[in-house]
């Protein structure tokens, strides 16, 4: 017996406005809308609706809206509708609950509990329109020793660096989890912005090798698509140890989603499952990690920075300290709100810690140990605005990764059903009819718009603080004050409370 579950959202159609053009019917991959020839009217089946707002956006007469259903079980502070429905779903099927995108639960967002400083009277603000305001930066080791050759000329002993024109990169999203057109949009935007996008663990499509100098390639436990040319093509190599949305859990792209093109990019046969378990089966220690770091450096002649990406977990400060000693050039930390194409609901919603706290602790630990210059720190999961970027840099990050925000720019409406592969916005899907809805010519411009706008805002906030470069803002925690935080939270973040002076 399957218990009927009332849909969480309902499709509401304004009958006066609807002209029965059937656009919504054609646009919905979940087959919510249908046309009743007898009455000449449109119908909607809300049980299939994922609330992606595609129909709402394309309806020429704005006749549609999706509303939260007011149907409810008896109100219960402990057993809310969602919790009850999850029990029903599992009792119906015996399955593990599968979700996507970032943790949607109502946990505190620490970005929103930090306020940014501004200069007044003394140390006046800088007007970014009039004066240079540097958002360019380099990622990599800053531990070069000064050495001179016989003729007294300075030798270049600097480890390879990644140059970013903006303190924002696009985080790892594999081809397979997102579409070809989404990847093309990210790659072209990264090129135009002077920053980087990241292939994720799905390999690099042959058409995108030309964006290599703006590409970070990933090496994960399954090693999909990893080979010499892939490593050589990239600007940097990222070893994926963990992901914020599912710390301790690997990836599993079912064979059904391995299309011909995805198969070619991952370098696996079509239709065969792509399993990327959580552990790298050759890494059980920092010493083992060091081995993978160095084998990648050896394979690429020490020309590319190596990034190690971990999920933000309880012990990440100690782990980061190990990574900084492993030879890696950059540490990427992914918070528990980071997105994903598919993750078990329980993991997504319950495992990991906020990136704000993880970042503050990692930066502090590396400073205390005198190894902060051994690595750059990149944070993501979830950076939602330029203000989050400024706060992250002030807490100690060198740059940020954005994933969900980038997908929103491409049209994602955060319906959190990427795992079904039927994304109506042409992003988290491989279905050709859906993929072509995302036009990369438009998509890349929207990404460029977003990041350019954020960059202006970052310059304005920095100018307000009287700081003229992101390098000078990095780790400058005196520029932050907490609001609505406990003493413990303040001490973990290493900031003072609003109203407290220097």
């Amino acid at each position, binding site marked *: 017996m399957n218990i009927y579950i009332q849909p969480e959202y309902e499709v509401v159609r304004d009958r006066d406005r609807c002209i029965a053009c059937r656009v919504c019917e054609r646009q919905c991959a979940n087959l919510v809308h249908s046309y009743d020839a007898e009455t000449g009217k449109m119908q909607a089946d809300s049980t299939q609706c994922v609330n992606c707002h595609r129909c709402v956006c394309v309806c020429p007469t704005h006749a549609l809206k999706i509303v939260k259903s007011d149907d409810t079980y008896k109100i219960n502070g402990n057993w809310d509708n969602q919790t009850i429905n*999850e029990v029903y*779903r*599992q009792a*119906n*099927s*015996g*399955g*593990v*609950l*599968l*979700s996507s995108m970032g943790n949607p639960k109502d946990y505190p967002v620490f970005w929103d509990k930090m306020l940014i400083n501004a200069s007044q009277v003394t140390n006046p603000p800088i007007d970014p329109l009039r004066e240079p305001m540097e958002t360019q930066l380099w990622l990599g080791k800053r531990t070069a020793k000064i050495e001179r050759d016989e003729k007294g000329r300075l030798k270049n002993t600097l480890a390879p660096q990644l140059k970013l024109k903006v303190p924002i990169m696009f985080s790892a999203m594999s081809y397979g989890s997102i579409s070809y057109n989404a990847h093309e949009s990210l790659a072209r935007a990264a090129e135009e912005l002077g920053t980087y996008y990241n292939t994720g663990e799905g390999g690099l499509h042959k058409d995108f090798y030309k964006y290599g100098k703006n590409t970070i390639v990933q090496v994960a*436990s*399954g*090693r999909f698509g*990893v*080979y*010499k040319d892939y*490593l050589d093509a990239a600007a940097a190599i990222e070893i994926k140890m963990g992901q914020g949305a599912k710390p301790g859990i690997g990836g*599993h792209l*079912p064979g059904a989603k391995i299309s011909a093109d995805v*198969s070619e990019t991952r*370098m*696996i*046969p079509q239709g*065969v*499952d*792509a*399993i990327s*378990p959580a552990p790298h*089966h*050759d890494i059980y220690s920092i010493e083992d990690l060091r*081995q993978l770091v*160095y*084998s990648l450096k*050896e*394979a*690429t*002649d020490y020309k590319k920075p190596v990034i190690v990406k971990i999920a933000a977990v309880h012990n990440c400060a100690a782990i980061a300290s190990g990574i900084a000693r492993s030879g890696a050039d950059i540490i990427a930390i992914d918070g528990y709100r980071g997105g994903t194409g598919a993750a*078990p*609901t329980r993991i997504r919603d319950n495992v990991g810690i906020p990136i704000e706290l993880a970042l503050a602790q990692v930066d502090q630990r590396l400073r205390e140990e005198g190894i902060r210059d051994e690595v750059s720190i990149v944070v993501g999961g979830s950076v939602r605005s330029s203000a989050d970027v400024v706060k992250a840099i002030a807490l100690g990050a060198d740059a940020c990764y954005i994933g969900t925000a980038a997908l929103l720019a491409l049209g994602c409406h955060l319906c959190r*059903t990427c*795992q*079904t592969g039927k994304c109506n916005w042409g992003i988290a899907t491989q279905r050709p009819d859906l993929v072509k809805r995302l036009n990369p010519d438009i998509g890349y411009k929207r990404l460029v718009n977003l990041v350019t706008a954020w960059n202006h805002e970052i310059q304005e906030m920095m100018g307000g603080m009287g700081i003229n470069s992101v390098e000078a803002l990095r780790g400058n925690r005196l520029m932050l004050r907490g609001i609505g935080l406990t003493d413990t939270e303040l001490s973990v973040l290493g900031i003072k409370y609003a109203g407290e002076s220097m």
Partner: protein
Amino acid sequence: MRIDAKGLHFSVLDKAVRDAADGEIIIDNCIGQRYIACGLSGKNIEINGTSGNALGAYLNGAHITVHGNVQEATGDTMNGGEITVFGSAGDATGYAMRGGKIFVEGDVGYRCGIHMKAYKENKPAIVIGGRTGSFLGEYQAGGIIIVLGDSKDGKPVIGNFCGTGMHGGEMYVRCEQIPTRLPAQVKSERLERLPEGEAAELVREWCARFGKDSKAYLDCTFYRLTPDSANPYKQMYTQN
């Protein structure tokens, strides 16, 4: 070109190998230097001594012969080429290899051939003369692993958890009886002799390299292990 590796740091040795204009390289006195020939193609490398971890990682067509033992992660993510070991190999030999061949005269450690996968014309192969440790062919997705089980100490020819998570490819194990329990996703089939085909060819190649009589290795009982398609590796999910 001949390089004396005695006392050389791995970075110096590996750079010399990488930068060598000469395609024929002999390394003498190798004492555990890591990452030799990472990602290399178009070279013939002969190593005397013991090479360190990650020998021939991402190997892209080069040929390597080692007169001695090799350590961990030999041929990690190898894409093409050949590695021949006159000795034994450590753990994670052929991790995620996608192409090329590895021939080991003696034993291999844990997790040999884990994540091995095939792709188009690339079909990786590992032939092991002796025994293997546990987790042989874990998560195997393609390619072929052959264990000949030549061993004098009478210990089991493969360890525990062979083929856990296997979802493609095949393994051939030469023995009278599979010594350990196989996971549910793995199907085993007893063969009275190795049938003609790819596996037999690989065994002949192995024998030619190590000067063995191929008849003695073909005319024996083998077990062929493949993923059980009726029992796939998957967990049941519920959309939430």
